[in-house]
């Protein structure tokens, strides 16, 4: 979530900023053009006040609002807030000679690096044009031989339990006979012997992904916590610790223990419903984090338990985990510390050897394996890492689920899939491939107002989400944001029920790992093999 060690530019990567660096003349040109309809603009200056990147300004002498295109990041805050709809932001049309290889994007990145000498930094999940496998997987529906179920009339169950499950139930039977009025009656008593390992109970198979305090504002966290509470699901603190005021949402909180160990103490572990060891994240597998000192405000310093104004550095690896047995030690240390009362999750990025890694994690004692795919989001990551490292979550889910089943240990841990879930159909497909639940991060942020401008790392989020600026954090009213999140979860849940009903399934257990209800369309043979699904047109 934090900016990485070599920071290109602490503020926006704009022409202005680069000019300040060490070049007189930048070769960059703006990404966007802001158009103002003079017939509609009433010069109310709402846009001027809303832009934290100072793209708009009011020229008193000319009595006119001016716009500096080079500063615009296309967050669309001004366009959304403009009371007359006078503002349009569009792609900047500069006639760079068309070249499939040396695209405008490539050129701009070269200019930027030649002007700053730094690593390119970005936010959110990769925007690169990789094939989205979700869009090549089709769902089944019941016709004639099997009635579809109307979720408005019939029960439709989405409840999901995350955690290790035993292989089988154990109980003791006691039969007793007694005389009733006319005949002998026999009653049999089943005494449950199985003690279930701790479980997380979800009313719908969706959780809010890890986003840390520091990367996101307190108001954003408040919204996530409230929404999780209302929906009967969970949110995740990320690695930035848990502000004391959110302790009351503990039963809906998954706390993270990451390589920086920020904010980890016994209270933090005790208050949570589950603990997650973060090994990696999909947007930047193998990369640590760096929250610049100026972002470490009083509140963040309290929460992260580090001095105010000091840089918060998350090492790339956990320096006490150099191998799988070390992970096992940390897992059991935390389990000991929490009295074996909470499920323990391990989050990893989906990398090439993910099936074996996941198997190792399960055998190391984790109750939940969270896998973050290629498209996973971030507050800050080196662009090259974000755009080129990892594998798509679709393939990772399938590989891991198959592997765990082959080894007969699938019941020993639940799988949470993460990384770019865009809608309820993606969720249904992930569950059918074998995930128990999904983490949503970007979708939740978008629900709260994010417009994916990918400038989280600047700390100037105009939507009040990824910022600590006192002027900006106020923009996100947690009550409104929580309502929007609840609506989103409700809407997706309704849709999942609708899809399941169409398939003739009335409990999510029967969808989970049910790959027979998926078909691949326009997928390569190898992809079908790894996904373990049939091509469209092939029947049972």
């Amino acid at each position, binding site marked *: 979530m934090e900016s990485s060690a070599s920071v290109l530019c602490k503020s926006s990567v704009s022409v202005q900023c680069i000019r300040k660096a060490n070049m007189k003349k930048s070769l960059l040109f703006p990404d966007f053009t802001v158009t103002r309809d003079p017939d509609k603009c009433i010069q109310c200056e709402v846009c001027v006040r809303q832009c934290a990147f100072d793209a708009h300004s009011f020229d008193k002498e000319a009595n006119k609002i001016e716009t500096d295109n080079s500063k615009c990041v296309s967050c669309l805050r001004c366009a959304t807030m403009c009371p007359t709809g006078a503002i349009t932001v569009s792609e900047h049309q500069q006639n760079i000679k068309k070249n499939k290889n040396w695209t405008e994007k490539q050129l701009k990145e070269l200019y930027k690096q030649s002007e700053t000498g730094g690593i390119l930094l970005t936010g959110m999940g990769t925007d690169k044009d990789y094939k989205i496998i979700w869009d090549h997987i089709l769902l089944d529906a019941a016709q004639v031989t099997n009635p579809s179920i109307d979720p408005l009339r019939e029960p439709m169950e989405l409840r999901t339990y995350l955690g290790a499950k035993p292989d089988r139930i154990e109980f003791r039977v006691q039969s007793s006979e007694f005389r009733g009025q006319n005949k002998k009656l026999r009653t049999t008593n089943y005494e449950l012997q*199985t003690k279930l390992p701790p479980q997380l109970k979800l009313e719908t198979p969706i959780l809010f992904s890890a986003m840390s305090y520091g990367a996101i504002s307190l108001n954003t966290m408040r919204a996530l916590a409230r929404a999780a509470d209302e929906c009967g699901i969970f949110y995740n603190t990320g690695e930035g610790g848990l502000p004391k005021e959110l302790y009351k949402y503990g039963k809906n909180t998954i706390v993270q223990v990451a390589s920086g160990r920020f904010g980890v103490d016994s209270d933090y572990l005790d208050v949570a419903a589950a603990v997650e060891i973060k090994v990696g994240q999909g947007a930047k597998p193998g990369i640590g984090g760096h929250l610049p000192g100026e972002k470490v405000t009083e509140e963040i310093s309290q929460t992260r338990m580090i001095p105010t104004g000091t840089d918060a550095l998350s090492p790339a690896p956990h320096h006490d985990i150099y191998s799988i047995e070390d992970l096992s030690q940390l897992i059991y240390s935390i389990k000991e510390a929490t009295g074996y009362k909470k499920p323990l999750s391990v989050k990893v990025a989906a990398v090439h050897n993910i099936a074996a890694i996941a198997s190792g994690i399960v055998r190391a004692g984790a109750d939940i394996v969270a896998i973050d795919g290629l498209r996973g989001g971030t507050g800050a990551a080196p662009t090259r890492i974000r755009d080129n490292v990892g594998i798509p979550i679709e393939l990772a889910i399938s590989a891991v689920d198959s592997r765990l089943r082959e080894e007969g240990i699938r019941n020993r841990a639940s799988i949470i899939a993460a990384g770019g879930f865009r809608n309820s159909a993606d969720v249904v497909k992930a569950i059918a491939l074998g995930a128990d639940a999904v983490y949503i991060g970007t979708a939740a942020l978008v629900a709260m107002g994010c417009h994916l401008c990918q400038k989280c790392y600047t700390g100037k989020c105009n939507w009040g989400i990824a910022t600590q600026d006192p002027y900006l954090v106020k923009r996100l009213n947690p009550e409104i944001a929580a309502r929007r999140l609840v609506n989103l979860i409700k809407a997706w849940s309704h849709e999942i029920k609708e899809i399941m009903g169409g398939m003739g399934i009335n409990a999510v257990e*029967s969808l989970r790992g049910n790959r027979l209800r998926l078909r691949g369309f326009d997928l390569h043979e190898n992809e079908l093999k790894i996904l373990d699904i049939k091509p469209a047109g092939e029947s049972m």
Partner: protein
Amino acid sequence: MGCSIAGIIDEKGNRFSGEKIICAIKKMYLRANGLGGGFAGYGIYPENSDDFCFHIIYNDEKSRENTESYLKHDFEIVKEEPIPTRTVKAIVNRPLLFRYFLRVKDEIKKQFYEMTEEDIVMRSVMKINGAQAGAFVISSGKNMGIFKGVGYAADIGKFYKLEEYSGYCWIAHDRFPTNTPGWWGGAHPFGLLNFSIVHNGEISSYGINKRYLEEFGYRLTLHTDSEAILYLFDLLLRKHKLPMSLAHKVLCPPLWSEIEKMPEDERKFYETLRIIYGSALINGPSAIIVSDGKMMFGFTDRLKLRPLVAARNGSKFYLASEECAIQEICPLKKGDVFFPKVGEPAIGKLRNTEQTRNKGTRNGHGKFRFSSV
């Protein structure tokens, strides 16, 4: 698929001719399309009641030779013979039909000391059905047998001369297949060891039920969903030692909203059961009759999307897709017939099976234990 199912059990253990069940299933011929029918009868081989009886269908002599040499490796063949049939015009393209009465060889028992006799039999069945092309074991229990093929059930019954057998429990199925082409092995009932099942329905959860079973070493070779139910029962009853009533609650668990309303202990039990066995839940429209020779157990899916009628008359207990099937073979009075509710099984069981209880299943000698909740 849409089909008809029927079953009769005499709770006193009196044996009766297979003719009755043929009449019952014949009455519902509109529910079938002639692409498969079959019967399971219990108590039909009293002379060899301690031997495993394999009914095997072969495509050709070559596969018979292969399979028999395989059988001879693991088993002592007490008796082997072609299954008697008669000529019925409608029954065409008959495979070779043989039955064998088998005992597991002592040396094999010693070799697989960690396995029960039943496990060894199951392993052989899985092996033949999975690997031996052209051979298929359709039943493998004791003192029971499955008779099935492609055709209307009534014709199949006639073909196998079922009126000449007498048993105390019969279940039957007439098929209207949609998902799988009609072939002899794919007809119902499906059987493994003493267990047999007939199923009218389609399992929307088959994909996960199959994968779940594969984790426990089952091989689902028939590409038909009904097979999964059979193995789920085998897993739950034989391997996990659940009583029938609880196995039923695994396959068709109460809704979470119902579980929440239960008293504390019961709630915890059902919650645990459902959490552990989520992948064994069978979803989709179904009416199912299963039998293990001790009882006949009928139930429907959680929404009761397929029909099931039950009736009790004298010592006999009947189950069928339609009431007419029961009326056909037994004059019923008002009050004899009842309609099992959603989530409630209809059970007919042999009385005086008490003596089998103490033998239990703990030592794994294959006596199923059934007790009521």
